[in-house]
């Protein structure tokens, strides 16, 4: 049962092979038995899951079940869930029981989904290794000495370890795609504005985007069918028609043009990664695609621009955590300043504080033009690079990450080295484009991810391209040892 994809589980439920309660209970039992190895969940919501499963079975009996009814998923602990702790993996929100649902959570509830629990992550989504979580790092199921990536590391680990058939993630600079690559699963960051950010605790508002993390492109499409759509409560949500994302999965790829940016294959790229990605491209050629070398000349500027924009927005977004209305409050504050400084100093971890300080500095008097405005200008250059390449090709491909999963602690003392892990993913967030990571090989027993980038709102195309690859290969079917 744990090897089944969402699509397979959906037909199992439909055919009456098992009930949602049985399926849910099996997953809950497995989480309780196995998750101590991976620490992929912060909170497991047994009671809610079982009552939702029961309701789903009743809906099915009543003939009102939809395509997602009764399917279990895990929510990244960045999405607010009414009545359930929503911690963002921070001490700051360790005691925060959200009094409302994120739009994404409402959508899963309305679709009849079952929530297994809330997954681990880097604190406030700031990190690429899951090591900044207040609840301890999640571990990579392929090698528990390695990180699962981040920030949606718990979601990736849970799916890879078969502790959830699928999970939600959020991606500000690669936080869906990088952990998907490192854990050998399929992750999709939609176009900015495709999925509502309401109730998704903000890291960097202009970059954050929620998306699916699943075993296959088909499952990601099923998830996106639930998640996508205009939300009047989010000013940055786009009034874009939502297609059935599964509709084009089976289209053949003949005539597809793939662009390979030379900047995505630098000299210092891990040779093993380069090889796996090149093999994947050959597979696409075999499927009828044409390949073209292209250039994204401003790629190297993406990380510098990102590390102004994201911390600047974060420094302001995280000001609301002040110990006044919710969240952590220090003991016995002697005055208001003490309340603020100790609640925030004790409630936030070091990486979060570091980024708040970078952002505060970048926005402080006299620096706005040199930093924030400059970064926003570079953002436009980066977007223009993509727009002109996507005029010539259908999709852009390259490695998702420069390295496979690294060891816990290996980069945690060197923030810059950690930031460089996002070199191939970050530019997409700046441009607002959709991107996917699909498993395309392994090196030393660790998965390698292929990144596929498409045009604005071209998620259907991306999913089609990924699905066809998964019909032809079985990298996405690999299971970590012992699972």
């Amino acid at each position, binding site marked *: 049962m744990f090897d089944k994809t969402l699509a397979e589980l959906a037909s199992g439920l439909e055919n009456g092979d098992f009930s949602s309660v049985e399926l849910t209970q099996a997953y809950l039992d497995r989480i309780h038995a196995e998750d101590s190895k991976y620490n992929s969940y912060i909170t497991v919501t047994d009671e809610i899951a079982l009552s939702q499963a029961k309701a789903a079975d009743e809906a099915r009996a009543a003939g009102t079940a939809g395509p997602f009814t009764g399917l279990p998923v895990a929510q990244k602990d960045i999405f607010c869930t009414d009545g359930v702790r929503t911690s963002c993996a921070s001490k700051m929100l360790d005691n925060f029981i959200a009094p409302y649902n994120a739009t994404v959570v409402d959508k899963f509830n309305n679709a009849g989904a079952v929530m297994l629990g809330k997954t681990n992550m880097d604190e406030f989504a700031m990190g690429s290794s899951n090591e900044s979580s207040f609840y301890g790092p999640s571990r990579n199921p392929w090698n528990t000495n390695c990180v699962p990536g981040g920030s949606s590391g718990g979601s990736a680990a849970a799916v890879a370890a078969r502790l959830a058939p699928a999970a939600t993630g959020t991606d500000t600079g690669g936080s869906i795609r990088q952990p998907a690559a490192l854990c050998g699963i399929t992750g999709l960051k939609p176009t900015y504005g495709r999925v509502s950010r309401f109730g998704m605790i903000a890291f960097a508002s202009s970059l954050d985007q929620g998306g699916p993390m699943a075993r296959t492109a088909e499952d990601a499409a099923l998830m996106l069918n639930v998640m996508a759509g205009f939300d009047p409560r989010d000013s940055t949500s786009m009034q874009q028609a939502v297609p059935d994302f599964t509709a084009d999965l089976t289209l053949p790829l003949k005539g597809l043009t793939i662009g390979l940016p030379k900047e995505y294959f630098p000299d210092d790229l891990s040779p093993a990664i380069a090889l796996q990605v090149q093999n994947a491209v050959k597979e696409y050629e075999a499927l009828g695609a044409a390949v073209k070398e292209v250039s994204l000349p401003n790629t190297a500027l993406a990380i510098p*621009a990102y590390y102004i924009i994201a911390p600047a927005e974060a420094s302001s977004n995280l000001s609301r955590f002040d110990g*006044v209305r919710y969240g952590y409050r220090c003991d016995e504050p002697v005055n208001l300043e003490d309340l603020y400084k100790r609640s925030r100093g004790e409630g936030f971890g070091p990486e979060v*504080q570091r980024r708040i*300080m970078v952002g*505060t500095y970048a926005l402080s008097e006299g620096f706005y033009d040199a930093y924030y405005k400059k970064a*926003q200008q570079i953002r436009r250059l980066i977007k223009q690079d993509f727009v002109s390449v996507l005029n010539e090709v259908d999709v852009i491909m390259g490695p998702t990450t420069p390295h496979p999963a690294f060891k816990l602690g290996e980069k945690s003392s060197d923030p810059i080295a950690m930031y460089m892990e996002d070199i191939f993913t970050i530019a997409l967030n700046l441009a607002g484009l959709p991107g996917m990571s699909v498993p395309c090989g392994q090196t030393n027993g660790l998965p390698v991810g292929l990144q596929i980038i498409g045009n604005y709102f071209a998620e259907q195309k991306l999913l089609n391209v990924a699905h066809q690859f998964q019909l032809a290969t079985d990298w996405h079917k690999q299971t970590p040892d012992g699972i």
Partner: protein
Amino acid sequence: MALDRTDVEKIAHLARLQIDEQDIPQYTETLSDILDLVNQMQAVDTTNIEPMANSLDAVQRLRADVVTETNSRDKLQGVAPAVEAGLFQVPKVIE
């Protein structure tokens, strides 16, 4: 670009973060490293490039002026650290 201790203390104060004295050298170093990284931007000429705040260059949608919220004080204050008579409590502010 090197920050000094005073810069870090000033930033931490602006951001209302209590940082331990012993952590200041490390913050000073990593923040300086990060600034070196971001300063790579300065090498590029961006004259006449319009800053991009939103990747789709979308414009603000307007909400009809309708009251849609009802009083949910009890629920919303259920997660508050200190409430008295419906008011959030903070240490006395002197004006």
